[in-house]
């Protein structure tokens, strides 16, 4: 179901940037379906690299918790700390979050953790030491 038809939280891109920073520099992410971020960031990318672009965008996001049975007040603002409670994990353990931009609610996109790339990156770092 599209984000626009589900209960939606609102958050600023800066708060999402804070959340990404909190996941640490070793987590890798990709974005699927968003023309704004995929046109500006080389994915897969670390959290701080994505966060830098998010902060520059100064936009607001709609976030839907796909598993949340509660129906929050439409447009309730959530912070980076609260976002943690709503993160879904896929079969392989990667974290998946679904968003749309507040000024383009029709376009859903996913922020997805890339565990494979994180593993390769760790192996490359270990080899170079």
């Amino acid at each position, binding site marked *: 179901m599209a984000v626009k038809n589900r209960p939606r939280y609102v958050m600023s891109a800066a708060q999402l940037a804070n959340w990404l920073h909190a996941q640490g520099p070793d987590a890798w992410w990709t974005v699927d379906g968003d023309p704004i971020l995929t*046109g500006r960031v080389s994915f897969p990318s670390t959290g701080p690299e994505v966060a830098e672009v998010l902060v520059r965008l100064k936009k607001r996001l709609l976030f839907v918790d796909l598993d949340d049975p509660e129906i929050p007040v439409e447009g309730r603002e959530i912070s980076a700390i609260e976002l943690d409670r709503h993160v879904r994990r*896929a*079969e392989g353990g990667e974290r998946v979050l679904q968003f749309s931009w507040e000024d383009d609610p029709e376009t859903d996109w996913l922020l*997805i953790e890339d565990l494979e790339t994180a593993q390769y990156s760790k192996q490359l770092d270990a080899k170079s030491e």
Partner: protein
Amino acid sequence: MAKLRVPTTHYIQQIATHTISVASEATIPIQHYGRYANDSWNLLPYFERNLKHTNVYQAAYERHMHRLHSMVLLNLVEAFERFLKELAAICVDCVASAVTDDRLDVFVIRGQFAAAHFHEQSVGKALCESSTWLDCDEITKRFRRILATPNDPNKGSFYLFPGANQNPASLRNKADLVALVFQLRHTIVHNAGVITRSDAIKLSRLSRQQVDAPRTFWPERPDVWYVKQFLDDLVETINDEVCAALRDLLETIYAEDPSVFVPAQRAQLLADCFQKSINLAGATCDPAA
């Protein structure tokens, strides 16, 4: 039982009409590249995420994923080629009406292709889209000529893939890797992934590794990631350097004849196309939001 026959001619003729709108980023080469490259890459985690942990036949999964690795790698190289064409087209459009030398002779266009591009509103697109951009020497020659100062007897000093003593320095030592990536593309496109003996000789020289033939190209996931990182970084550097070279060229042209263009308009065009803040002949513009 007779084999089912379908009117393939009719259906194949219909294929070219199955289209969707061009992405809005198509007017900005670096964003157009980024969108397509990232979308291509996302095929891999999408299938891994949805198939890897389900009840799949592992051998079939591995075989299909390796084929997908080749397809994504090919897409990345195609995106890079298109980026070069789009960037060159912008340069030609910015300069063509302001100079009268022979720089555009670097493009060879036959009459039949000129007719096909007759309705193209952009001289740059008409010239650049009629050629392939898959040879480092040819690419360098074209950008060098397009970005040369007017009536330069040396025919230009900007080298997109410069040698040891050429500029810009940030793009030195990239040509061999780009040629290697182009050769891998050739293997996938023209030989369905089979490395022929002639391919192997070229690949061995470019990669400085022993490449055997006949073999089938079988790329792993990290291989695609390394190529993407390389091309993503290269695109960013090329965007910066071509933008700077074009700006400098326009500055020179304007200094010789201020009637050829309005600085603010040209500065805004560059800012939007290259996504950089531009100062041109006293006019400063930022990319439109």
